[in-house]
Structures are given as C-alpha cells and as structure tokens.
C-alpha cells in the first residue's frame, strides 16, 4: 500500500518545528512514531501537504523524576517508558498499560507516549480502506454531514482507544502544549473535547511536548484493566484505571476512569466523594458497577467490533476489576 505524496520536514529544535507548524497548521501533522499516522495516510484518511518529523528533536525525548512529578517527554518511545525505573516504582499501572499496546515491534522504539495519548479516535466505519469506505458514504470526519454509526448525531462519536489514556487521567496527569506563542498546560481529562472530528483541545499550530504526572502524595494503590478480543495487536474494547491513596486502612482518595467507550475518557466523579474516607469494603463494588453502567450508557454507540450492549457490560466488569484490585478486594465476584 503506497503513501500519498507529501513533503518531509525534520527540524532539529522544537522552535523550528513550531515555526513550521505556525505556517502550515493542520496541513502538516506531527510524525512521532508513525504507527497511527502512516496507517491513516495509507487509508487516505488524511492527505497532508507535509509531515513534521520529531526524530531530530532531542528535547522531546526522555523521562525525568522531579521533586513532585514525573515528566514524560511526548516523543519518548513506549518501551523506554515501561522500562524506566522511576515509572516502574511509582506507576506500575502505566507500565501495564504500555505493555498492552500493539506488540513489541510497535512499542519498541517507534510508538511514543505522546502518540498513544493523541491516538486518533477509532470507529468501525472510519478506520477502513478508501475502497471499503466508498461503499458507505461520508461521515463527519470524511467531509459528510452525518454519522454513519449513529444517524442524526451532531458530532463524531469515534472511540478514544489509547491504553494510557485512562491511566494518565486517573493519575491526574497534565499535558504541556507548545506553540510559537508560548507554552500552556492542561489536565489530561480536559485534553479531550468529546468530539471525534476534533478530539483534542489543541489548535493546528500547537505541539504536545510533555506529560507531567504528579508523584503520589501517599501510598498509591492502583489498577489498569483492559478487555479486548486479542491480547496483542488489538485495541481495547473497554479499559479502566483506578488510582487510589490507601493510608492506615482508609481510602484517602479514589479516582476511576473508563475509556475506549466514547471520544473522551469518562471520570466517575460521584464515586470519589462516596468512597473517600471509608475503609475498603466489598459493598463498594455494587455502586462502582452501577456508576460505570450509568456513565458509559450515554457514551457507547454501535461503532465497534462488539455490540453496544456487550461493551456496556464489559465497562462494568473492567470498572469492578480495577476497583477491586486497587482497593485490595481481590477474589470478589465481578
């Protein structure tokens, strides 16, 4: 399968990359590992004038552990993230999430942490070849005015499918976004717009430069759960992450995030205050199950290789498993 023609820029500093981005905007997407972008180009889901490679920009690679946070530069290969001693020690759920992305040949060296966060939302009617799509008509993302999966939907409901997304949202990570005009930060939870056609709160002139995860302020107890048809080279049907602080037998904080449901991760906020301050108890799992179903029922539509009904049930399973593991309630029926 051939790629469409485009120009190639490989600037050696972020400033130079931002200048090119300021000039070319959306017509010049960022090429980090390319494992998502090149597939899109081959499927003619995008035909950019140019691509901007991050290959030569050293300041966009690497991991630093500071006094209060761990900083992952956006262009850091996934394997380096999963093998980093500071990540393994502080955030075992992130290691598990990275290991479940694609396969070794994708994680190793090519795929990046920024790329996984910026994975374009996926849909059964969108992530297909040009030939396949010509038989179905156009959707919000391919120049049409309707959604092929949900007739009458005002925006694209494609699925945010990054494995690291619920983990980074549960850990209250922040993203740093640069443009020629300066830098800004935003919580990962607010990075997603909820609209598949423009899924990220970034202008076409901006580049994601780093992800900053605050170090846990108490004993972190966490879990990442993913359900998919295959254990490798497959996107999650649903995934969920829990980050809790358990101190002296009490839950000091609790955050559960479900993703791979709709275009944005879903944070189960009402559970946070209900569980905080209590002792872990199997009785907490029923409210988790109910909250998970309530949260995803509005987000999941018929646009994946499994039915909506099945994915809603899976969301409850993933949420209960994640909460059980993080709260030390293993071996509870889910």
């Amino acid at each position, binding site marked *: *399968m051939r790629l469409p023609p485009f120009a190639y820029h490989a600037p050696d500093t972020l400033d130079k990359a931002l200048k090119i981005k300021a000039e070319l905007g959306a017509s010049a997407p960022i090429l980090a590992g*390319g494992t998502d972008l090149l597939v899109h180009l081959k499927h003619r889901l995008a035909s950019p004038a140019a691509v901007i490679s991050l290959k030569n920009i050293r300041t966009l690679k690497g991991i630093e552990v500071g006094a209060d946070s761990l900083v992952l530069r956006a262009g850091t290969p996934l394997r380096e993230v999963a093998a980093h001693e500071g990540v393994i020690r502080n955030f075992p759920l992130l290691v598990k999430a990275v290991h479940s992305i*694609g*396969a070794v040949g994708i994680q190793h060296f090519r795929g990046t942490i920024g790329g996984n966060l910026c994975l374009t939302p996926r849909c059964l009617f969108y992530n297909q070849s040009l030939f396949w799509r010509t038989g179905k008509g156009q959707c919000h993302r391919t120049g049409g005015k309707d959604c092929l999966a949900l007739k009458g939907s005002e925006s694209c409901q494609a699925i945010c499918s990054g494995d690291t997304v619920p983990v980074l949202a549960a850990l209250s990570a922040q993203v740093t976004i640069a443009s020629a005009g300066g830098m800004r930060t935003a919580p990962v939870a607010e990075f997603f717009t909820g609209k598949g056609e423009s899924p990220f709160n970034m202008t076409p002139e901006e580049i994601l430069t780093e992800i900053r995860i605050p170090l846990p302020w108490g004993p972190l107890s966490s879990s990442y759960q993913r359900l998919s048809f295959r254990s490798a080279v497959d996107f999650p049907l649903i995934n969920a992450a829990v980050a809790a602080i358990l101190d002296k037998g009490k839950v000091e904080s609790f955050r559960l995030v479900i993703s791979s449901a709709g275009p944005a991760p879903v944070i189960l906020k009402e559970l946070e205050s209900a569980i905080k301050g209590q002792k872990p108890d199997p009785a907490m799992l029923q409210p988790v199950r109910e909250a998970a179903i309530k949260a995803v029922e509005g987000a999941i539509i018929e646009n994946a290789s499994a039915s909506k009904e099945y994915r809603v049930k899976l969301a409850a399973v993933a949420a209960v498993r994640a909460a059980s593991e993080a709260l030390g309630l293993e071996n509870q029926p889910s």
Partner: protein
Amino acid sequence: MKKQLLSMTVNGEEVNLAVTPNTTLLEVLREDLGLTGVKEGCAEGVCGACTVLMDGNPVRSCLTLALEAGGADIVTVEGMATGGNLHPIQQAFIEHGAVQCGFCTPGMILASKALLDRNSDPSEDEIKTALAGNFCRCTGYRKILEAVSAASTGHTEPRRKE
C-alpha cells in the same frame, strides 16, 4: 515531490540513495536494494511480516518512512548469515520445521533475534510476548516457539522428534 538524500547502513554496508518523502523503508529495501526477504503482508502494521531491525530494535518497515531511518543501522534477514553459515536462529527454524509457507519467517526470525540479543535465555512466555506481533497464517506457532527456544543459550538437548 522533491527527492531527499538518505544514508543508512543495511546489513553492514553503507547505502546512499535519493528517495521521495512518501517512500517507506519497506519499499526502499525491496525495490531499491532488492532485499525481498522483507515481506509486505498487511501493509498497516498488524502482521509483522515486514519486521526489520533498526539499531537492534524490531520495527515495522511498512510503517517507517525511509527518511526516518537516516543514519540508522538496518538488518534484514539477508544480513543474518555470516561467511556462508546460517545464523543459529535460522538453523533452528530449519531443524524444527518452523517454516511452512515461509512468508512470516523473515519477520519471525528478526523479532526472535531482537529478543535473544537482549535476553539470551527467555522463558516460553517471554518468547510468546516478543513474537505476539508476528502472525503466521499457516498457524505453525508451536514449531516456531520450539525453534526460538532451541536457539537460546539455556537450551541444551535438541528437541527433535523421532
């Protein structure tokens, strides 16, 4: 589309050529350099048949722009044998019948090499994880696992059937 210069090392030899930016590493290796051991299966990063080693790491050559490989050290299956002798992994694939149609074999062998170069005595689970991104549509996985296991240092007795 303007061509750009690309310099890289392929199987130990320095290569200089001009390529258009939309050329993949797979296309350069197969079409410009004649290294047809690199296979194009799905062309979208799923099957692993196009796996080559880039600075020792297994990568999908179908999803790697040729220009991204500038300055890199590339190894294809053609670069495995030395002095007319097959690499121990290649030999193990033959001895264990780990080749059926052979289309996935170059990718399997290079993914195995990347594993054994890092971990010379992997467990079966570690081999399965390392090869999880390589599909064999003849489904000859059992023999492939045996071959990789036989090529590892921890293996002493040849596991050949009578």
